[in-house]
């Protein structure tokens, strides 16, 4: 590329000078070829120096610019001197007597300008590439951060829940071995799900619901008759994609406020329907929102952030009193289906 560039340039300038003097001789072509053999390694040397002087990683270039100007001038002078020697002793078309200083200076200046332009072009391309690399790195960093953020925000299984489950199982071994076996299966499924989807950003509604059913089965054993639940889902919703643990988080919240807080317990209703091109997931529990409670708990806050990172402002989460005795948490998510 570099060699080809110099070849074309010197060929053109040779032709230009020949045309100027009105004659195209083999000699002038040979001279240009000689110059080509000189300028290709010379520009390579400039390139080497640019990197050696760490041009691209420095902030201040004033001294480097001076050094480059000086160096290219030196190279152009040496080059022109060598060409002159070649013309005198190689081709015998010039002697020290016919040697003219003004012509020498003009050709030196000409070659120096070209060498400088070459250097400038090299620096520009270099800077452009460095910029591109920098931008790419920034984009990669951004997306890595984004992913880390999503993972960190992922709803974690509540250790309080897990240890209560284990305690209940230990108690249940004395009462009913069959129920204990079922509890172990439910908890295993829950753990599998949370390990499996800890690296994933979306799951299908039916996968999430299966998880929620396991969760509710264990909570129903913990709270006994205090926990009642109902699940109503449009058939078409089952293969839509949602963030993992999102429904479970709403259910966990509903249990915390609607069941665990109340001595007689209550009912949890989960419903999923289509509303235009959105999926509407509603989880209701008995009770009323406390006006004094200041905003979301950590779980809801995390879910909100996950929604924003993943769907920008296409998804919404709202919490309100649905009736004088019910609270509803509503999650609205744009419909996406897995590619199959």
């Amino acid at each position: 590329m570099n060699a080809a560039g110099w070849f074309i340039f010197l060929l053109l300038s040779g032709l230009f000078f020949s045309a100027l003097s009105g004659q195209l001789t083999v000699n002038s072509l040979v001279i240009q070829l000689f110059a080509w053999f000189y300028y290709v390694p010379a520009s390579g040397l400039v390139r080497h120096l640019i990197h050696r002087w760490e041009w691209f990683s420095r902030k201040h270039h004033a001294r480097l610019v001076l050094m480059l100007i000086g160096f290219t001038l030196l190279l152009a002078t040496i080059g022109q001197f060598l060409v002159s020697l070649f013309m005198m002793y190689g081709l015998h078309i010039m002697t020290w007597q016919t040697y003219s200083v003004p012509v020498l200076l003009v050709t030196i200046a000409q070659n120096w300008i070209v060498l400088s332009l070459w250097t400038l072009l090299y620096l520009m391309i270099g800077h452009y590439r460095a910029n591109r690399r920098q931008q790419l790195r920034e984009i990669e960093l951004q997306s890595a951060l984004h992913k880390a953020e999503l993972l960190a925000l992922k709803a974690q299984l509540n250790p309080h829940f897990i240890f209560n489950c284990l305690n209940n199982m230990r108690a249940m071994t004395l009462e009913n071995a069959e129920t204990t076996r079922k509890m172990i299966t439910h908890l295993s499924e829950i753990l599998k799900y949370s390990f499996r989807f800890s690296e994933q950003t979306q799951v299908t509604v039916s996968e999430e619901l299966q998880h929620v059913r396991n969760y509710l089965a264990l909570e129903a054993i913990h709270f006994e008759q205090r926990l009642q639940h109902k699940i109503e889902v449009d058939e078409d919703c089952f293969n839509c994609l949602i963030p993992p643990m999102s429904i479970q988080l709403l259910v966990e919240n509903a249990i915390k406020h609607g069941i665990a807080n109340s001595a007689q317990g209550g009912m949890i209703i989960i419903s999923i329907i289509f509303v235009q091109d959105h999926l509407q997931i509603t989880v209701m529990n008995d009770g009323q929102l406390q006006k004094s409670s200041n905003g979301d708990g950590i779980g809801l806050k995390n879910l909100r952030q996950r929604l924003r990172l993943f769907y920008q402002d296409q998804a919404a989460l709202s919490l309100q009193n649905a009736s004088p005795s019910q609270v509803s948490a509503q999650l609205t998510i744009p419909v996406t289906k897995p590619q199959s």
Partner: protein
Amino acid sequence: MTENIPLKAHITAHIIDDSRLARQELKHLLKQHQSIHVTHEAANGEQAQAQMTETLPDVLFLDIQMPGMDGFELLQQLDHVPQVVFVTAYDEYALKAFQHNALDYLQKPIEPEALARAVAKIEQQHLNRTLTAPLKQRDILGIDDQVFVKDGEQCWFVTLADIRLFEVSGNYTTLYFDDNQPMLNKTLNQLAERLDNSQFFRANRNQLINLNHITKVEPWMQGMRVHLSAGETIELSRRQTQQFKELMSL
């Protein structure tokens, strides 16, 4: 030949936990410990409080998260606070409170050895108490009784002997012990009714003092004033000065 009478401990216990299975499990584990007799169990704070106005146990196994009153709130409601062992499944907030305040706790599922250590401690404390306070009067709070106070993150089981001063703060009462001055959500009048008046004395409308903490008594204006162990100076009202003299047979 020395006579060795084995002191067979008989310690009554209440279990308070909203989960039936959790209560079941703890009862099962406690079968290994014959000194502990579980006499009552309750599924929430209100039920527990009602039971404890009937019979006060020696020890409470108490869950924190419960519907209605939580474990801490229940303790604050009690006049007499028995020994308490908190029992909870992993709960960051509660664990912090237990550790910060050096409270006894067990984590569900309970490790049998941890329970054995807790029971050993209960037996030891029970023994100490029965030796120092042989006769417990039901309705009067003696100096060996303890109350539970919670002030924000901090909480204490305070033995009344350590409290030198009770002071009115609106509907609450500020307790002074060691370097702490937390508030108890009872009025001074409510407390005064329950305190043993051979140990505690109402100095004036706003202050009630522990007689054991008086270091100096001096005449003051038309009445008297006393100095307490930590340097507080309490003025006795004129009416109370007379009573104080009678009490101390001055």
